[in-house]
């Protein structure tokens, strides 16, 4: 099919405009991260006059970035792992059985997804204070408290998406496994989970990414040694000077692993996200 001139112009203009818009901040990030401090505090220049890698060394000393990295890693991995396990079990039940309360459950899960995070923040904050008072388990300013709150937004999405994904896998597959005597859990483990791998990957990436970027809960529920990257990064600008070059370097350092992971797995992600659409 030939492309008309109009369509061609549209295509080129769209791609050029959106590429420039997308690249602009990325360019500023990369070039500013290799400028000396004096240069980023002066008028902006498109190219660095002097290139230095010093900001990439300094970021680890200006604020305890490594500590924040570890905190983020622990919190995000735990939230992702816990939600995957719980969601797999729940999605299996919702997808393969029809039982009393099934609709109530799915409706609740779906509707909690749309609730604003701020609605849960205040009560969770208060509940945590009171749990700590009653039991002595510290939940404010700890990673445990943050992991629990991250389940508020990770879990419903995981259940919703995995249930949709399981629905797309023919029932005959796991029924056959059950006939072979593996039992219900065996069918889940040996048949459904391997078949749903793209869905699991997609849910995992999505959960990890959203936790990695979360600010609202982290800003209230963490302090000093338990802060995550999202909060820690703000500290470069509360110093005497705003270390813009270090902020850009640190932003790149915390972004690169997750961007690479996402881009490598994007096919699985798209396939999982639109399990129904592409079928």
């Amino acid at each position: 099919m030939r492309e008309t001139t109009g369509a061609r112009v549209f295509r080129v203009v769209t791609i050029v405009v959106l590429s420039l818009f997308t690249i602009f901040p990325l360019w500023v990030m990369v070039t500013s991260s290799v400028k000396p401090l004096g240069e980023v505090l002066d008028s902006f220049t498109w190219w660095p006059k002097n290139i230095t890698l010093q900001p990439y060394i300094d970021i680890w000393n200006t604020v305890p970035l490594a500590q924040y990295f570890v905190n983020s890693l622990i919190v995000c991995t735990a939230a992702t792992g816990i939600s995957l396990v719980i969601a797999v079990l729940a999605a299996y039940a919702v997808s393969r059985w029809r039982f009393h309360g099934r609709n109530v459950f799915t409706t609740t899960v779906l509707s909690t997804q749309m609730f604003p995070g701020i609605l849960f923040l205040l009560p969770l904050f208060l509940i945590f204070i009171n749990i700590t008072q009653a039991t002595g388990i510290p939940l404010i300013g700890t990673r445990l408290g943050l992991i629990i709150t991250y389940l508020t937004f990770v879990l419903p999405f995981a259940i919703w998406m995995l249930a949709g994904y399981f629905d797309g896998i023919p029932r005959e597959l796991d029924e056959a496994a059950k006939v072979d005597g593996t039992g219900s859990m065996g069918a889940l483990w040996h048949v459904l989970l391997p078949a749903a791998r793209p869905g699991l990957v997609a849910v995992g990436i999505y959960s990890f990414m959203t936790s990695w970027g979360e600010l609202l809960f982290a800003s209230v529920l963490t302090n000093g040694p338990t802060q995550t990257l999202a909060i820690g990064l703000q500290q470069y600008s509360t110093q005497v000077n705003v270390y813009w070059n270090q902020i850009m370097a640190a932003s790149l350092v915390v972004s690169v692993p997750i961007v690479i992971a996402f881009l490598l797995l994007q096919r699985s992600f798209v396939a999982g996200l639109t399990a129904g659409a592409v079928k």
Partner: protein
Amino acid sequence: MSAIAPAHTSPESATGSGAPRRPPRRRGRAGWWLPYLLLLPAVVFELLVHIFPMVTGIWISFIKLTQQYLRNWSEAPFLGFGNYRVVVDVNGVVGKGLLNSFLITCAFTLLVVAISWVAGMAAAVALQRRFPGRGIFRTLFLIPYAIPIYAGIIAWKFMLQKDTGALNHLLFDTLHLPGEKPFWLIGGNAFWSLVIVAIWRLWPFAFLMLMAGLQSVPEDLYEASAVDGAKPFRQWRSITLPMLRPVNVVLVLVMFLWTFNDFNTPFVLFGKTAQPPAGDLISFHIYNASFLTFNFGYGSAMSVLLLIFLLIVTIAYLLFVNRRSKRA
């Protein structure tokens, strides 16, 4: 809430492939309890992180929960609708602030969702046909979505600085626009800064969803209509758009909810201390109302009102969408 159920947004029903096949009923047979057991952890966590906090939140909105009662909030006096009366009183300071924030958020959401959708659709269509380098652009366009939220916004914050920022440099030093370099993060421009940054982050998501949706549109539909002499725009109107409808129904709703509840963009752009009134989005407003003054009663009342508003909009939207699809 059950009103949402018929049109719920699972990929299954959203893509129009019909209702999922009903699994056969298991009751009465051995192992009928198994699904409940499987569901148990999820139910426990749902209760812990959603239901219980939500009920608590609604209850807090009816009591006088100020700093002095934080640690023994069972003793906080009951106010009935007292908190609500204050936060909706547009003549008072609190109510006026909330109304201002609500209107700004509406304008912000409308602009961001509309422009992001148009950009995402344009990019998805532009990359629909194979050409050398297509993969590179696809990857590039997804980067703003993959990058951690705060990292992208911090880069923009640097670019929006008045004297050292890249945006003013681009506009006034490179493109030589007339006039003075303006402040972007203070005053009225703060609103436009929010809009631009939010679009930068959101449009790749629209692109991702629409691109995935386009994969399911059969190529021969276009071939056939081209034979009939349909121009590209006409093809988009009568083939692409209707085929993408199921994706769009979900996409627009999700983008609306995310944007309306956006907290990260103003929080990172403006910080805790300096909030320009023009950039006072509602989640940010509630956050500040709660944690700067520690009046959780007001904050909760505002959150509940926000929730009610979102529920009404969502239900109205789904009803509208369902009625249209029945007529079609």
